[in-house]
Structures are given as structure tokens and as C-alpha cells.
């Protein structure tokens, strides 16, 4: 088989038939460009979603007592010495990837006011660390967030405040089971009220200073979770692995990635990914059919040309290789152009984000699984995703060229020579 000559012929056919090649390649170019654009948007939305959820939750990486994830009980807390070991480990792997880390002492209990009592999740936090870690302080609608010298202050959700009839300055009682097993109460005063648009937070989350929580619950120096916020969610696996290596053999500590620590968020993202895959599969199918149709039309319209090639001495198989080669060149060229176009289009028009707020103005419409997606989605390019899109497009282009190549290889030469005469 004279592959060099066959591919040279195919390359000339593609290069010297600019209009035909452009029309054939158009579907692939647009398909890949659209794919890169939609993937970068999906990646951007996911990253915002994950970041929002982990900042309000237990971070990209959470260090907990091994049984805490399942029990959620105070008895499965991290003691002061083990907490120091966790801090040392985080400090050792920090680098550029770790943006912030913060301790949490979390307990479920009851919030009671003069008018009502409601179940709540109380988080003892370090106010300064929490300001960097979480953006809950920015969600204030009345009053202020906690400050380092606060002692008996609480920062509560807007819906909880409404139901308990609380305002800034109001006092109410928190009740929970302490480390000793007794039910202990703690009187606190509302310092600020927040609104996140996430119902479960607005209805049931309370931040109080961690030292107040420790005293109330009888757990000096203890935490239930040390939450680590990373620069990107894609760093999670690497950091988890490093921390696990450093804390290997420490039976008091367990390192969890956000997917493990927040299974509801993981499930929601997987569902969203599934929707993306369906959408992209349909897009791929359309692109594949368009490519096959374009290549097929190009072959059917050139039967006589292929007949001449065989009359001059090419075998049927070699003629098929010429057609396949044309498809391959078109695919590679279209892949490169489509990728460049997708990047350029996304970067030029949407590098500052694509504003979807017109679709749903209510903030709650963008809240899901413990996080809020900003309606202004900033596209993110991940080389692996882009390469995957390119890889699939090349496969589709290649596969779509096989049938036309087979048709060309099985041409009846004498009939083809009559064609269109």
C-alpha cells in the first residue's frame, strides 16, 4: 500500500478544494467550538457550586474523628492534642493550594425563644478564620458577623430569626447534649442575621464563637471538624492523599475529601454531570451525523474522480484510504480550528462570566445541595476536558469517514466513469 502517496493525494484534495473542505469541516468546527464553550461553562458552574458549598460546609478537605461522619455526635470529637497534630499536618502541606483552614465544633440542638423552639445546627467557629474561609459574613442582612472578642453572641439565619421572633440584640437559649451526656443550656444574644437563599441554612444554622461552644459543651480545646479550603477543587485528591500520608497511623484523625464529607453535594454534581453527558452525547451524535453526511456527499459527488483513480491503477482499498485520509485531515484541521475558535469565542466574549441572572432572578433558584451557584458563571478551561473533547471529536470524525471510505473502495469503476457524463 502506497500510504505516503495516498495521504499526499488526500491532503491535496482537502487543501485545494478549500470551499468543499470548509463546508465539510464546518459542522465539526462548530460542534467542537460549542462543546468547548459549554464544557467550560459547566466546569465554571461546578467549580462555583463546589466552592460555595464547601465554604459554607466542611471545606474541600475535612479532618474529623473517624466515626464523626456517620454519627455526627459530639462524643466523636477531636481532642486538643489530636487537633494540634491535624494543624501541623495542614501547615506542612499548605503551600499555594491551601487558601484557608478553620476549626469547627458542631452540635445539633434546640434554639428556644419566648415564642418558640426549633431544632438547629450550632457551629462554634473562630470568627477571624471564618471570615476568610466562609462568605457567610457577607450574607448579613441585619447586625454584624461575629468578632474575635465576642463571647455570648450568635449569628443566625433570617428564617430562624423570623420563626423564633428574634431581632438583633434579642436573647435566646441554645440547648444540646454536652460531652458529659447531660443536656446543657447556653444563653446567647443575636449579633447578626444572615440570608443565604439556602433554606436549610437560613432555617437552622447558628454560628457562635468556638470558645463559647467549648465551654458550653465541656470540650476544652476540642473540635469536630477542621475544614481546609483549597485554591481549586481539582487539588482535593492530591491534598487528601498528602494529609492521609502524613496522618497515617493516627487513629484519632480521618482525612476526607469534599465528595466523601458532603455526599449530597457529590450526588447533586453527579446528577448534573449526567445531564451534561446526555447533552454532549446528543451534540456529538449531531456532529457525527453532520460529518458523515458531509463526507458522504463529497464522496457521492466525486464518483467519477474515484473511478479515474482506479482506472489509473489504484486498488479499491487504496481509493478508500484516500477518502479516509481526506476525512482524517479534515478532522484534524477542524479539531484544531474548532478548539481555537471555542477558546477564542469563550475568552473574548465571556472571560468575565456569562450572566444568567435574567433566567431566574430569585437567589434561591441558584441554590442547591448546600451551595449557591453565582448566576454570573465564569468559564473554566481544564486541559483534560479540552483534550477529552478534542479526542472524542477526532474519534467521531475518524469513524464518520469509515463508511464513505468503504463506499469509495467498493465502487463499480465502469459505472462510476459513466456517472454524470
Amino acid at each position, binding site marked *: 500500500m502506497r500510504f505516503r502517496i495516498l495521504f499526499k493525494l488526500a491532503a491535496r484534495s482537502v487543501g485545494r478544494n478549500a470551499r468543499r473542505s470548509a463546508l465539510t469541516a464546518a459542522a465539526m468546527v462548530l460542534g467542537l467550538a460549542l462543546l468547548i464553550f459549554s464544557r467550560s461553562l459547566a466546569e465554571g458552574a461546578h467549580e462555583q457550586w463546589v466552592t460555595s458549598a464547601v465554604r459554607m460546609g466542611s471545606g474541600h478537605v475535612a479532618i474529623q474523628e473517624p466515626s464523626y461522619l456517620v454519627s455526627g455526635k459530639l462524643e466523636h470529637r477531636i481532642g486538643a492534642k489530636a487537633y494540634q497534630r491535624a494543624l501541623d499536618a495542614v501547615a506542612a502541606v499548605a503551600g499555594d493550594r491551601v487558601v484557608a483552614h478553620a476549626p469547627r465544633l458542631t452540635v445539633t440542638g434546640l434554639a428556644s425563644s419566648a415564642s418558640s423552639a426549633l431544632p438547629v445546627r450550632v457551629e462554634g467557629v473562630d470568627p477571624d478564620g471564618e471570615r476568610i474561609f466562609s462568605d457567610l459574613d457577607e450574607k448579613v442582612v441585619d447586625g454584624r458577623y461575629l468578632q474575635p472578642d465576642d463571647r455570648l453572641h450568635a449569628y443566625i439565619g433570617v428564617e430562624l430569626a423570623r420563626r423564633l421572633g428574634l431581632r438583633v440584640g434579642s436573647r435566646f437559649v441554645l440547648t444540646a447534649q454536652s460531652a458529659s451526656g447531660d443536656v446543657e443550656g447556653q444563653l446567647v444574644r443575636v449579633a447578626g442575621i444572615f440570608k443565604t437563599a439556602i433554606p436549610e441554612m437560613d432555617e437552622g444554622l447558628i454560628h457562635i464563637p468556638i470558645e463559647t461552644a467549648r465551654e458550653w459543651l465541656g470540650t476544652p480545646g476540642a473540635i469536630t471538624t477542621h475544614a481546609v479550603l483549597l485554591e481549586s477543587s481539582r487539588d482535593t485528591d492530591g491534598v487528601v492523599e498528602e494529609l492521609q500520608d502524613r496522618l497515617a497511623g493516627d487513629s484519632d484523625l480521618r482525612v476526607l475529601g469534599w465528595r466523601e464529607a458532603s455526599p449530597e453535594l457529590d450526588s447533586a454534581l453527579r446528577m448534573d454531570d449526567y445531564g451534561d453527558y446526555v447533552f454532549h452525547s446528543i451534540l456529538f451524535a449531531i456532529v457525527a451525523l453532520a460529518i458523515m453526511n458531509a463526507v458522504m456527499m463529497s464522496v457521492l459527488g466525486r464518483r467519477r474522480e474515484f473511478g479515474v483513480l482506479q*482506472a489509473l491503477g489504484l486498488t479499491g482499498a487504496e481509493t478508500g484510504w484516500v477518502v479516509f485520509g481526506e476525512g482524517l485531515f479534515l478532522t484534524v484541521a477542524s479539531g484544531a480550528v474548532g478548539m481555537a475558535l471555542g477558546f477564542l469565542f469563550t475568552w473574548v466574549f465571556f472571560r468575565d462570566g456569562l450572566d444568567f441572572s435574567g433566567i431566574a432572578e430569585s437567589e434561591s433558584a441558584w441554590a442547591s445541595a448546600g451551595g449557591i451557584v453565582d448566576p454570573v458563571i465564569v468559564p473554566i478551561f481544564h486541559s483534560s476536558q479540552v483534550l477529552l473533547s478534542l479526542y472524542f471529536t477526532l474519534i467521531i470524525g475518524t469513524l464518520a469517514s469509515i463508511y464513505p471510505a468503504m463506499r469509495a473502495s467498493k465502487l463499480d469503476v*465502469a459505472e462510476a466513469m459513466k456517472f454524470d457524463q
Partner: protein
Amino acid sequence: MSTSNGTLAVRTKDVWKIYPQEPNPVKAVRGVSLEIESGDFVAMAGPSGSGKTTVLNLLGGLTRPTEGSIWIGGDEITSMPDKALARLRLERIGFVFQAYNLLPVLSAMENAEFTLLLRGVPASERHERVRALFDEMGLEGLEDRFPGKLSGGQQQRVAVARAVVGEPALVLADEPTANLDSVASSALLDIMERLNREHGTTFVFSTHDPRVMARARRLITLVDGEISTDVRQNHETSGA
């Protein structure tokens, strides 16, 4: 003046070509038996639908007979595998088509050298041979033009150059002058005659044109797929 050398370029024995078509199969070629000597200059005449093109396609191995046998230079091609048949076409047969059929994406030079390229002839030798032919055929200076930028007569001369550049033993030409005016037709026949005379190439061509028939040394007439007459015309071929 005959350039035939007594050896056979083509031999067919009771060749039939039947196209299965409902309700009545089409018998395009009916029991054609003929022998063509090497170096002969043979015209096939006959009305439209008489089977001229089908016979040429059969001789060139572009289609296989329903019955009968065909030999090209002593090799029986009827049962030859496709790959071997393609090789035989490449090395021993040149084709000239009525509609020129130059490859539109290749220049005149690239079209003419195409069979040499397939045979693996080095570029310098290919170019040298094509340039010599182009000079001989009045195509000098047109090497880089694409088919769309050539006149019909020029395209057909490039097609003839492509057919003969590999020095095949046999050139099959299907109505090579059909799309040309009388001046271009005459010029093309001059070239074909000269190549036949000087290189000993066997030419078998189909035609409707009495002026073209008159220049053949042997005239085979087909009617309804059968050989009606087969006469040798004794005349001197005109010089180029």
C-alpha cells in the same frame, strides 16, 4: 505504414457482457472475439449503445465479462484478482476518456505524472519525462495550470500525456475527440499517431467521427454488441 510487430496486445474469446435488468437483461456485448496486434492503431466504430465503451472497459479490466476470456499481452485478466488487475492497469494500460477526467485537484504536470508517481518513479525523472512529452504535444508552459484553467483540447492532450507517459503497451481511448472541435481533434490524432509510430504503443479507440475512423489502420464496427465488420485500412498515416 504499419508498426504492428506480430505479437498480440489484446485477445478476446467469445466475450459477453450482460447487465442483469428486469424484465429483460441487457446484452451489451455479445460474443466478441478479436485479436489486436501490438503497435496497431485500431478504431472501434458504431452507433450509440453498440457496446464500444463496454468493450473498451472490458479490455481495460474496468469491468469483468459475464462470459468469455480476455488476454492482455498474454495474461488472462478475466479471473485476475482486483489487486493484480489494478497493477496491470498501472503498468501496461493507459486510458483516455471522452470527458478528459483529469483529477481536478492536481496541476497539468501532476496529472500527467500521476501513474509514474504510483509506480514510485523519482520526481526528477517524472518531471523530465512529462516535460519532454509536453514539449512534444505543445503543452509547454502549462505544467502548473489546473484542469479548470485549460481548454478542452489542452485537457485532452494532458490526458493523452498521462496515458502514455508510463509507456504502456496499450492505450484505450473512449471517444477521445468527441468533445473537441475539428482542429483540436486532428491535432490530437496527429499526436496519437506519432506516439504509435515512434513508441510502438498500441492504440484502441472508439469513435463516431468518420474523419477519425478514416485515420485508423484497422476499423472494427460494432452493432448491438456484436462485431459487424472488421477491416484493415491500408493507408499511410499522416505525419505530425
